């Protein structure tokens, strides 16, 4: 009797520890992979340049087309399908819940200025609340600061990024239920800044 109780409790304890280890592995993998996915997709998106304006010497991104290209690459590399600004995972995707995507275009006039982006995740969508463009110009390119307010009102700041040209900024918010209710949920934003390719 005694040995059974002991071994069952040891078993449960080992399982719990194991689950926590695996859960931490999965969380790290998810974050890194989501960053990779939006970086690759955004890279592909920024090839979308207005060819008519380019012949006149003006570099301008075509936004809807760029985000279509973004969606194509998200499907190819991560098996996500687009539905508005939500990206729905398939069974082979790295996340199990939809990923929310918002984009902000920094044009030729603005990329040398500092930009502050504030976003809010309200449970159904990731919205850009405020985009603050500074007045001062830096010759080497402005700094981009992104902050996301979560559903619970927590403010998450992302390390500032440097712009090296007119860019497309993509913010993805991953909001996943935990593996088992005992463990914490995986919610985090990731950001990609890619300059236009011309």
């Amino acid at each position, binding site marked *: 009797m005694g040995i059974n109780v002991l071994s069952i409790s040891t078993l449960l304890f*080992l399982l719990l520890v*194991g689950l926590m*280890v695996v859960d931490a592995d999965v969380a790290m*993998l998810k974050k890194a*992979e989501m960053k*990779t996915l939006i970086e*690759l997709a955004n*890279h592909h998106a920024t*090839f979308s340049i207005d060819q008519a304006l380019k012949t006149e010497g003006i570099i301008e991104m075509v936004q809807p087309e760029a985000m279509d290209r973004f969606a194509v690459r998200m499907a190819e590399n991560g098996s996500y399908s687009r539905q508005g600004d939500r990206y729905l995972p398939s069974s082979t995707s790295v996340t199990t819940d939809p990923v929310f995507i918002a984009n902000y275009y920094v044009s030729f006039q603005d990329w040398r200025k500092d930009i502050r982006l504030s976003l809010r995740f309200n449970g159904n969508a990731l919205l850009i609340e405020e985009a603050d463009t500074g007045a001062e110009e830096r010759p080497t390119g402005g700094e981009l600061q992104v902050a996301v307010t979560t559903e619970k009102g927590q403010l998450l700041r992302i390390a500032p990024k440097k712009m090296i040209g007119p860019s497309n900024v993509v913010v993805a918010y991953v909001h996943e239920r935990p593996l088992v209710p005992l463990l914490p949920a995986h919610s985090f934003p990731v950001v990609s800044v890619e300059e236009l390719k011309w």
Partner: protein
Amino acid sequence: MGQLLATIMNVMVLLMVPLGVLQAHVVLQMKSELLEISMAATKYVTNHGGKNDAEVVNQLRQFIHQELAEKSYRLDENDIRIEVARTKAADPILWSHEDEFRLRLSIPYPQLTALFPDWPQLLDVERTGTINVMDYDL
């Protein structure tokens, strides 16, 4: 006798749990290393392009060799199979601006036990990238 048998079985079940956890941990770690290195490799091809197919493959092999040497990965270079092919090409030979390619890295599935023969044989990652190098820069 029954008590002894029960104890032996208890111990065996107890040993299975850490083994399973370790297996899951190793697979996840290998997978994330593979994801990481395939990302770096995709970026490399994206930023370098190449004069022909053979050059791209050689440079890529060289790059992965370097990456593995510099960072403390568990991956073994000899295990990694590299496949890379273009899916969209403006020029039949040069790998340059806005060409698209598909890169696939695979390793044998890291199995700690031979108990489950019908597990997948390979762990692989596939990535599609777009090249950002002008042909006059090659």
